[in-house]
């Protein structure tokens, strides 16, 4: 397993290099002049001041030298100061990560906790009422755009019925994480964010489980007199998890990316809103840092996915 992980990590290096090169080139070749953006709104910046800024930012160096400096900065996680907040981007992102993680982890858990059993139940009850209900709900859930569901949640359960807050992490004046107030606030965004997973997992799992329950080794287990439950969990479920693992690959990014919209709908001060505001405000260092961090996250989640494959299906290691 150790060698497998090492090999995947080595393979990730060229991908990482490509991502960094692309991000660097896109930012340098885009028509937006960073100095112009930095001094936007300043009426009396002299050409000399500009030249000093270009020099300070290293923008007067040849491109390859700039790229080397850029790599150094990325290695030190130095993405510069946000044009909007005038503070280091890393600091701003660091502040928001815990907020986004609360949402993404909880909704991932919720999606798995509901989606996986539903898939198994649907397969074991093929053609019966339970199967139909699960399939129809799953398709419907897939068809509903999450932001729309979120807006409905806010409008009906928040504004009209007042059962839940219309957004934010806490009531004004309260500042706690492990408390009822936070739990009350997190219900809406977590349910909304987990909707995609709750809808998707049963569909994939059902197909996979149906295939696996017809396999010889399942029949063997049954004829050995093993209990249905232990066959379902030990033989069927484990072997059916491959498509779930595939779906989980990139899930970190998908959940964080999906939260750009959800965080806006629920006024959640996470990474997604930071990125969105960065785009709206043309906050160039912020967007660059978000792209790189997003890409890294994707890379890491793919590696984790491969490791999970290897764990679920030992044959993958050999290939």
């Amino acid at each position, binding site marked *: 397993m150790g060698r497998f992980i090492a090999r995947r990590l080595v393979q990730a290096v060229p991908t990482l290099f490509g991502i960094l090169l692309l991000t660097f080139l896109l930012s340098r070749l885009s028509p937006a002049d960073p100095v112009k953006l930095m*001094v936007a*709104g*300043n*009426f*009396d*910046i002299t050409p000399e*001041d500009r030249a000093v800024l270009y020099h300070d930012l290293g923008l007067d160096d040849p491109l390859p030298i700039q790229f080397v400096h850029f790599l150094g900065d990325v290695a030190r996680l130095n993405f510069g100061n946000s044009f*909007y*907040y*005038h*503070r280091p981007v890393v600091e*701003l992102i660091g*502040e*928001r990560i815990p907020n986004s993680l609360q949402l993404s982890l909880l909704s991932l858990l919720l999606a798995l906790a509901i989606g996986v059993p539903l898939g198994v139940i649907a397969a074991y009850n093929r053609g019966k009422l339970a199967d139909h209900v699960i399939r129809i709900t799953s398709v419907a859930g897939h068809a509903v755009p999450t932001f729309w569901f979120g807006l409905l949640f*806010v*409008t009906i359960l*928040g*504004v009209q019925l*007042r059962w839940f*807050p*219309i*957004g*934010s*992490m806490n009531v*004004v*004046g309260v500042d706690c994480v492990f408390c009822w107030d936070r739990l009350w606030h997190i219900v809406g965004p977590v349910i909304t964010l987990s909707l995609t997973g709750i809808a998707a997992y049963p569909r994939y799992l059902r197909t996979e489980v149906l295939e696996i329950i017809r396999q010889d080794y399942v029949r063997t287990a049954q004829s050995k007199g093993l209990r249905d439950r232990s066959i379902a969990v030990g033989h069927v479920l484990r072997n059916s998890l491959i498509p779930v693992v595939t779906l989980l690959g990139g899930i970190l990014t998908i959940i964080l990316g999906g939260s750009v919209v959800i965080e*806006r*709908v629920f*006024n959640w*001060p996470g990474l997604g*809103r*930071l990125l969105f*505001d960065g785009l709206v405000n043309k906050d160039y260092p912020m967007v660059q840092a978000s792209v790189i961090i997003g890409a890294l996250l994707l890379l890491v989640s793919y590696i984790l996915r491969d490791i999970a494959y290897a764990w679920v299906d030992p044959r993958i290691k050999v290939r």
Partner: protein
Amino acid sequence: MVAVACGAPTPPSSGGSPVASEQPVPGGRIVEGSTGDPKTMQPVISTDTTSSGVWSWLYFGLTRVNRDTGETEGNLAVDAPKLSADGLTVTYTLRDNLVWSDGTPFTGEDYKYTVEAVMRSKKTVRKSAVNTIVGAKDYEAGKTDSISGITYDAKTITIKLEKVFCPAIAGLGGGGAGGILPSKAFKTVWDNKSTDTSKNIDDNPLNMNPPASMGPFVFKEFKPGVQVTLTKNPKYFRGEPLIDEYVIKNYADATAVKNALLTGEVSFAGIEAKDYDEVKKNDSLKFFQFKSLGYTYIGWNAKGAKAPWLANKQVRQALWYGINVDAIVQKIVFGLGTKALAHNPPVSWAYDGSGLTDYKLDVAKAKSLLEQAGAKMGSDGVYRWSDGSPMKMRIETNQGNNARETILQLAQEQYKAIGITIDPVLESFNQLLDRTDPGPDFEGFIIGWSLGADPDPYSIWHSSQQGKGQFNNVGYSNPAVDKALEDNRNGPDCSKDARRKANHAVDLNLNQDAPYTFLYSADVLRFAQKDIQSFDPKPFSTASAWNIEKWWIKK
């Protein structure tokens, strides 16, 4: 019985004020919704309303805008400044015993420091208010270490100006920045007594962590993406506020603020006309409506290469007669606004509506004006201009602004009836601003202006203001208007009467020349929770609630 408790309000007469017999209860929190975080909490470099919505509670000017009339009145100074006969010396008399929240006395040095900070800043957009002070430009260039034109003693601040600049008098009270900084604290990050122009106040930790306040509140905490929290200032010169805390909470957009108002999370908020009916139904809210200092218009580019007819005054008048502005006021702002006939809005003290033509929809008159201008009707129902080209042009506006999109649809239909074809163009707001930079590449556009309390339409209408990035993008040029605009700025008579006369001359000409089809000034619609007492917004009190120290929350 009249309430006489410490800091008790004299009950104002309008809606939402407490009944005289009610005793104000101290305590509680006011929550205001904003859409975005403040970029800075320091006025010199501030350019956005979220930022000014924070620092305006902390840093005050010597004068402020009168809530009802928009005229200048005393704030930290006892009264509006005294102007010498030649208009070149401005004197402020300070209130007694002014102290910052940290106990430091307020002095003329705070004022001078702020002006000097503005002059040395490389990020400010506010120099025009103070760069006519004697010695300001020398200080900016590093030739001196102090602005010689500002002198002060314990009671007065005297400012000498190089030339008369009427609009500056309103702006001088804020030291150019709008709010005066606590010099003692800020001197630790930037020393004003220096000739080194490379140093300034633009980037320092105090810009996001205000050290002291002259206003009703003191800065407590800023959580990016969440809120700014202010607490009451017991040393506020108008009296300690009754409420304990003022929170400026960040929401994703205007809809979220509206929802927060409906659920009681936000104490008060302005809403758009389209939401009026929905919000009005909520019986825990009270409503305030007042005139605004802005207007929406269709601009006609007289220099548009593809529509040479726009240079003709009769054509522009025809375009005004050809659209039903009264219907727009009714259907788009639901009657919650006023028809605009010229630049200065009715709420401004400079407004004089006499002699202005009220353009009402008149298709026959519009057509006759087009024909007088030399247009001939084509067989397809579209007029041909004198060069033979069909009268067809674009009107652009920003996508997502429902009111403007609807006006554009209406214009397309109604101008068809007078024989002019419109190509509607929707684009992002930034694109619209880029596209309508002075030049020949655009024809008509729908947008609006938000104006300041001091009437100074120079940058919008003077013929010299047609360069890249300037605001006279319709290519308007009229020597009589230029003269009136200059009189309004440079006097030498800066009296209200003289400036009202100058502004009236501008308005009369604009009303006849029709460089814009002026549409309407939408009213400001504001709702507040019924439990907030003494809340009494007025046309010119939107930036900082004028009587916040008297607000209290009824349990």
